[in-house]
């Protein structure tokens, strides 16, 4: 029974990996992804300002980028 479960999980994992190989687009399909607003850091200035506020007001920082140092506000 246990072995069967392992086999099923392994098959599913392999299928997932095979699925990953299909992820992505061809270079000529990047019309939408290439837009400025689709960049992960498109809100860079706003995010920088927000990070400073939340760094000063909450116990957690970072995640998106480095967490350490910066100001004496915390």
């Amino acid at each position: 029974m246990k072995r069967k479960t392992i086999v099923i999980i392994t098959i599913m994992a392999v299928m997932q990996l095979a699925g990953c190989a299909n992820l992505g687009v061809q270079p000529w399909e990047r019309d939408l992804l290439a837009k400025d607003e689709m960049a992960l850091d498109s809100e860079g200035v706003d995010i920088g300002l927000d990070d400073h506020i939340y760094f000063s007001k909450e116990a957690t920082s970072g995640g998106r980028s480095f967490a350490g140092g910066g100001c004496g506000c915390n």
Partner: protein
Amino acid sequence: MQLKQTKNVSATLAAASCALLGTSVQAEDNSEEWKFDTAILYYGETDRVQLVEGVFNANKDFGDEHYFNGKLVIDTLTGASASGAVAQSGVQTFTRPSGNETYTVEAGETPLDDTFHDTRVQASGQWTQPIGENYRISGGLQASKEYDYLSIVGNGSLDMDLNQRNTTLSAGISYAFDSIDPVGGRPVDLSSMVVDNGQFDSSEAYQQAFDATRLQGSEQKDTVDLLLGVTQVINRRMLMQFNYSLSMSDGYHNDPYKVLSVVDQQGLTQDVVYESRPTERTKHSMYWQTKYALDQGVVDFSYRFATDDWDIDSHTIDSRFRYNLSETSYIQPHIRYYQQNEAEFYNPFLSQGTALPEHASADYRLGKMTAITLGLKYGMQLENGNELAFRLEYYQQTPDNAGFEQPGTLADEDLYPSLKAVIAQVSYSF
């Protein structure tokens, strides 16, 4: 009529903002132009801290994917911040951090230290360039200086593109050196606040007692951050990023201006002591962001889980939805939810008669809380191609009691007041 009026208001606001932020620089006839993003932000808490922050961000593409980013941030802070002491049924007297004077807090009021005033200047530069066909390196420096604080940060990272650039693996490291030299010296951990209630024979006697609770000179903190990330294009419309980061800091973690009340069984304050935090902290965080392109806009969603060896776990959900109103304008609602539990050494107050713990802090930022941000941004492209945007947000923090019983009269006091703030921002890119 109504429409026309709206347009006039927009135009007036646009003109006012341009005047505020400086007019656009004439673009040179050069294919590798500088691009500038500027912003002014106001952050105001009800009866507490007010912050005004200006950002000047410059990007330049030197060709062949060689990028430079430079950023200058200046902010000025005024107002009052909760000191950590509890509200009482009578008037309370505290000594200011400098030791030079005292201030009083009315009955039922949360003690605030109203000498909060600082100006900070931060400058940073970042260089990014490819190495070979599928690798990119990036390195940067940042320095931040305020009256009692200096921070210098260096970072480096390596990106590797795979699978026709549909997958990017990143690894980065950052080192931060922070130095603090507080006003009036550093309080000795858990030492009692010396308050001049007329019990001293002379001002020298008071000064001697005050000085005995202080250490002179600056203290340091070293922080090393490691970040591993995967960015994956899912399909023509969707992009995802996963990051794991580890942050280790060693050194002075206290907030030298925070205190704790020591109360008796009736809930009356008998003493006020300066906080003591551990000298080390290790944080882990997992971050997932996804962006999805709609025909009319973009959905941006992120979730972060963070945990650390101070026993603080937090969950953050941040979501923006950009909706294009036309070819040249958009609105963007923003919602953020944050929740954290308290640090293991967090105590809203200490009890008289029990031994002092090794570490204790009543800083509400280390306590249990939830916070929510609701915002709206409106952006438009002007006729000259530059972009102007306005952002207005509301931020509310709601601290919770993490199971601490309030003895005697303390039961009548609000030890967990919520904090409400407004954020307003004007941005101009050219």
